[in-house]
């Protein structure tokens, strides 16, 4: 009973194959212009792609070959648009009732009141949208979207127009609502933290193509390509050659510009093969920061510059074996002080072996450490 989307289109360019598991919250994440809102709009039935199909469970919503294209009212959907798009001339309750026109008049008001109560805006039914705060407008938009009891809820950047503290409340409310309703949710967002907090599944898209999909924690921890890694905010993306596998210790050994690196065993690649590898900037640490002197994955570097961001320092390092590249490190101010991290000074760093992710080399053929100056 999952929601399957398989579409191709010229303008905007889309060539996508997505599967959203039933009853789960799936985030569709990508930079602006990646096609995520277009994807949501075609699931909603607001436009039709030139080719492909969209099915939910056993029902076909769109199929170019069979010339099926159900209008939005015949798809079991509720939509929360980015700026909520409440009807400005109707009260909050009338806004919700506007989604219930298929019911006899007498049933609309109680159903609308119930939906407003579910979205925690029960007392605000008589107010017009311009009399509501951003958070209240969002809740009314959610009430309107769930009023028809849709099987699929489509949320387009639903938290982007509210302040930070309201957003946290709304996150919790969305989770609670989802637990109550159990519907399939497609959450379109450009915010990875939001996706990580809310969704159990994640689809990364860029330029209208699917880059990676899977369980949120898997995708976040194990990008499958340099492209996915960059979309997941990994700034340390490099290329190495695979030296050997050490199956006893469950390690793969890499040769990175003459520096031996140990990474979790990845037997998809053979010795001698080129691989890309990435590591989170939080897993690059001053070499003896853990209180013990580690022996592997040590890299000699020179500090290029240091930027303080709150309690953290963002440090750019030039690795001595390949000084043209940039290795990024995020370290607490406290650790940096004790390790004497300062611009132009030498620094030994250790790359946490378990945090290195290896992947097939990307086509661009360039180590991106260079590209993130």
């Amino acid at each position, binding site marked *: 009973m999952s929601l399957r989307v398989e579409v191709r289109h010229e303008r905007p360019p889309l060539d996508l194959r997505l599967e959203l598991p039933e009853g789960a919250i799936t985030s569709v994440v990508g930079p602006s212009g990646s096609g995520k809102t277009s994807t949501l*709009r075609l699931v*909603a*039935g*607001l436009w039709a792609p030139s080719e492909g199909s969209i099915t939910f469970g056993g029902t076909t919503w769109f199929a170019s070959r069979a010339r099926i294209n159900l*209008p*939005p*009212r015949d798809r079991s*959907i*509720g*939509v929360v*648009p*980015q*700026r909520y*798009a*409440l*009807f*400005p*001339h*109707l009260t909050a309750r009338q806004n919700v009732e*506007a*989604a219930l*026109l*298929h019911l006899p008049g007498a049933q609309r008001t109680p159903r609308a009141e119930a939906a407003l109560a579910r979205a925690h805006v029960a007392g605000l039914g008589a107010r*017009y*949208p*311009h009399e509501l705060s951003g958070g209240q407008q969002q809740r009314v938009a959610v009430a*309107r*979207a769930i009023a*028809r009891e849709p099987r699929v809820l489509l949320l387009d950047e639903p938290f982007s127009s509210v302040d930070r503290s309201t957003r946290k409340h709304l996150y919790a409310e969305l989770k609670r609502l989802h637990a109550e309703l159990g519907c399939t949710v497609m959450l379109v967002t450009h915010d990875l933290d939001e996706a990580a907090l809310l969704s159990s599944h994640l689809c990364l898209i860029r330029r209208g193509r699917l880059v990676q999909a899977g369980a949120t924690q898997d995708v976040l921890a194990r990008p499958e390509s340099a492209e996915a890694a960059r979309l997941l905010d990994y700034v340390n993306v490099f290329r190495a050659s695979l030296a050997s596998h050490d199956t006893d210790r469950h390690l793969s050994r890499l040769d990175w510009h003459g520096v031996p690196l140990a990474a979790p065993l990845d037997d998809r690649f053979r010795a001698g093969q080129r691989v890309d590898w990435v590591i989170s900037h939080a897993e690059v640490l001053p070499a003896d920061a853990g209180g013990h002197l580690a022996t592997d994955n040590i890299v000699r570097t020179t500090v290029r510059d240091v930027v303080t961001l709150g309690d953290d320092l963002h440090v750019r390092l030039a690795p001595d074996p390949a000084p043209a590249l940039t290795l990024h490190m995020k370290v607490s101010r406290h650790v940096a002080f004790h390790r004497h991290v300062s611009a132009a000074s030498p620094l030994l760093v250790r790359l946490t072996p378990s945090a290195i992710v290896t992947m097939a080399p990307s086509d661009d053929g360039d180590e991106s450490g260079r590209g993130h100056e």
Partner: protein
Amino acid sequence: MEWDAIRLSLALAGWTLAFLLPAGIVLARWLATARFAGRHWVEGLLALPLVLPPTVLGYYLLVAMGGSSSLGRWFQAATGTTLAFSFMGLVAASLLFNLPFAVQPIQRAIEAIDPDVREAAVCCGMTPWQTLLRIELPLAWPGVLSAAVLTFAHTLGEFGVVLMVGGNIPGETRTVALAIYDRAQSFDTGAAGSMSLMLLAVSFLTIAVSYGLGNRVPGTRRRR
């Protein structure tokens, strides 16, 4: 005061509104939402009465309605009277020369509705008719109102087309604008003055009241 002429002008304005407003709404919505090649030609055709000299429009209408045109012959066969120089002919001409006044304000008002709001209506399960009646028209209400007022006031004041198509037949096609002209020509300044003052007052009142009402539509002032 020529009460016959005043009554006739009001009847003409009323019939014009009754026919033109629904047609104007449908046309305006189509122009506001549909995308098609050659749209500027359609819009240009609709706006023609704004720039054409009324005598030119009147001339063509007279030719189209006259006994030598197929429309004129058909009408005469069907009703026994001519379309030109009749009240019916006047209504038909009035519908045409008022088209831009009825369509443009509604079209602009519908175009000003946030497309997200229209899509939200579709996603709420509304049919196109429900969207028009429940969302678009209430939001475009000031535009509909000003279309109605402009059409009404313009019909009361139209002179050239009415004279060309209707002649100046008392009780049939003699509108208040023609009556004012006639009275002024025969130096009856008293009657011409009082009828002019009445037209001025009615036009000013309707426009001022429509502006006032337009501002009271809930939510429209804060529309994004």
